[in-house]
């Protein structure tokens, strides 16, 4: 599996646009800046929805209203983040694919998607009975807390990707090599 991922990453790395994007100081920085600054739209809205469920933000505005109205800008923000995220991976495919932090981030993104699905399902099932209450029921609050925790770790992992502590071109422990998917004798990093 790791060899397959490595080969795909090398193939992407060999495409001319990958190198062009990586080597373009301004373009790469524009993409990275957009990825980071869109946090204000995507995570900003998401955290406000989660904080509403916990009773810390907009406690006197119906929860369904906050969730529905902020959902659209949040999804627009996440779409931009997703596109710029793919471009960032495209620019540095091998190192990203073999980054422990990138891998944790991807797993957590899947966990966040599942949590968001369950959160909306639980909310739509019961919101009419607690819509105007300051705090959502425990099941919904648990989803909000999980969302806050997962996304906080995702942001931390995103920052950690920039550091080379566990990169495959350094000598690493067997555990790190396994988790990062380092390949014996690999020539591309």
């Amino acid at each position, binding site marked *: 599996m790791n060899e397959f991922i490595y080969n795909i990453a090398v193939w992407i790395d060999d495409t001319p646009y990958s190198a062009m994007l990586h080597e373009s100081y301004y373009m790469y920085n524009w993409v990275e800046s957009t990825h980071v*600054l869109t946090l204000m*739209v995507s995570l*900003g*809205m998401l955290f*406000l929805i989660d*904080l509403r469920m916990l009773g810390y*933000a907009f406690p006197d*505005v119906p929860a369904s209203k906050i969730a529905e*109205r902020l959902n659209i800008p949040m999804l627009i923000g996440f779409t931009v983040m997703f596109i710029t995220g793919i471009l960032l991976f495209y620019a540095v495919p091998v190192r990203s694919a073999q980054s422990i932090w990138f891998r944790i981030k991807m797993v957590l993104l899947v966990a966040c998607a599942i949590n968001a699905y369950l959160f909306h399902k639980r909310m739509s099932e019961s919101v009419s009975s607690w819509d105007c209450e300051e705090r959502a029921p425990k099941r919904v609050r648990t989803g909000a807390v999980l969302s806050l925790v997962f996304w906080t770790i995702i*942001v931390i992992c995103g920052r950690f990707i920039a550091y080379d502590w566990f990169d495959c071109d350094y000598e690493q422990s067997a555990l790190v090599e396994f988790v990062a998917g380092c390949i014996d004798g690999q020539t591309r990093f």
Partner: protein
Amino acid sequence: MPITILGPYSRTILTIFVIAAVLGFSFTYVRIDVYTALMPFFEWMETTWFGYIGKTWGAAFATIQAGHLIGLAVLGGCVLVSDGRLLGLILTDVPHRTVIDRADAVFFWALVTLLLTGIFMACGVAMKIYYLPVYWYKMLALAGGILFHYFIRRPLLVHDLNSINSTVLKMTAIASILVWFLVAATGRWIGFSG
């Protein structure tokens, strides 16, 4: 008393005066004297406990950076919701007053998070940022943002919003979004410099 003479717009006029004075000051040689005088303070910042941790423990620095980003995200969310409401783009079926007041409460804590994590980060790379022009642009933008929010936007929005010209409200909202975007953009720019 000047406050009485200036009437209800005293804080707005004083804030504009302060911003104009800072801009005027930045074109004089006094700016260089102040810049030089601040150097020992930045040298001291690096010797503090925060500075020591920031320089020697990369994981702690990156984690605090992530906290800074989350603070920025929440602050941005509050600004967009509050100003989006003033522009009639979001939560249009919730009263202005409710959206603005509730968003302001969260905004305050997001700003506190940004400032605390920002101080920690600045201590870790104090001498680097001292020589970065963009760091000073960010500080000016941040000071402008805080002054604008607490001394222009908030006093204006304390009044009955129906009595305020809708163009003024929209201009205030656009200015608020732009000033906080400028703070975020200059912050990102620091990452590319030096």
